[in-house]
């Protein structure tokens, strides 16, 4: 159905950008995890997750994002989010995702910060 999440990504040097489009539930979360892990396996050290085309992330989706974040931290990598709606931002803060990952308004800001950290 139309709301189901589509994930696309692009590698730029050490950084991979992932874009989501639609509802992030367990399937959407797993889709993101697959894409993220494949980049990590190929040597990417920083991930930027751009959610600007997503309006709902349910708690199961977020719990999967937390697993991705832990795996990135295990490998001393960086995970940043951008393009969150106020509601998604609020939910990320409630669940503590915001304590361990960085959240930026725009993709450019996220990329700039992440590039500095992995340089």
């Amino acid at each position: 159905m139309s709301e189901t999440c589509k994930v696309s990504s692009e590698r730029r040097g050490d950084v991979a950008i992932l874009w989501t489009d639609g509802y992030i539930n367990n399937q959407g979360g797993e889709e993101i995890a697959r894409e993220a892990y494949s980049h990590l396996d190929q040597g990417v050290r920083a991930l930027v997750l751009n959610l600007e085309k997503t309006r709902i992330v349910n708690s199961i989706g977020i719990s999967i994002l937390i697993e991705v974040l832990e795996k990135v931290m295990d490998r001393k990598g960086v995970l940043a989010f951008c393009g969150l709606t106020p509601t998604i931002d609020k939910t990320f803060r409630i669940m503590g995702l915001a304590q361990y990952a960085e959240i930026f308004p725009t993709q450019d800001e996220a990329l700039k910060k992440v590039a500095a950290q992995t340089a």
Partner: protein
Amino acid sequence: MSQGGSAPPGLAAAGSREVSMTIPVAPEMEIVATAQAAALGEYLAMSRDKIDEVKLALVEACINAFEHANCRDEQLHLTFRLGKEGKEREWLEVEVLDRGRGFNHAAVEAPSPEKTFSSHRKRGWGLQIIKSLMDDVDITSGEWGTRIVMRKYK
């Protein structure tokens, strides 16, 4: 509504401000349900962000029923109510009723980011999110099932 005012005169005139629906217990049906919440939120001219909060709370309540309730009738019963407190404060209320096995709400352990990040169990956030996003939440549960009533002010 063409005046874009706050109180929907039609509904008030009809003396009824309630929309009820029944959806199957099935994956992604929670998203179909949110269409209704959004339509009624827009009817009240609620902000898009508040509508998103109602939608997520409804999603969480539906998923809980799908996952935990083991509903005898394989259905979820939703009721949306529009109301007004005093002269100005309009609200949208969403009730999710399942005829499942029920649970002891008081015994549910509250989640915390620390526990979530240090253990393998990352779930357990649904009710917490519902309470954080909605203005009033009331849960009753028993052998007959579970009813969660949550209200958001415009």
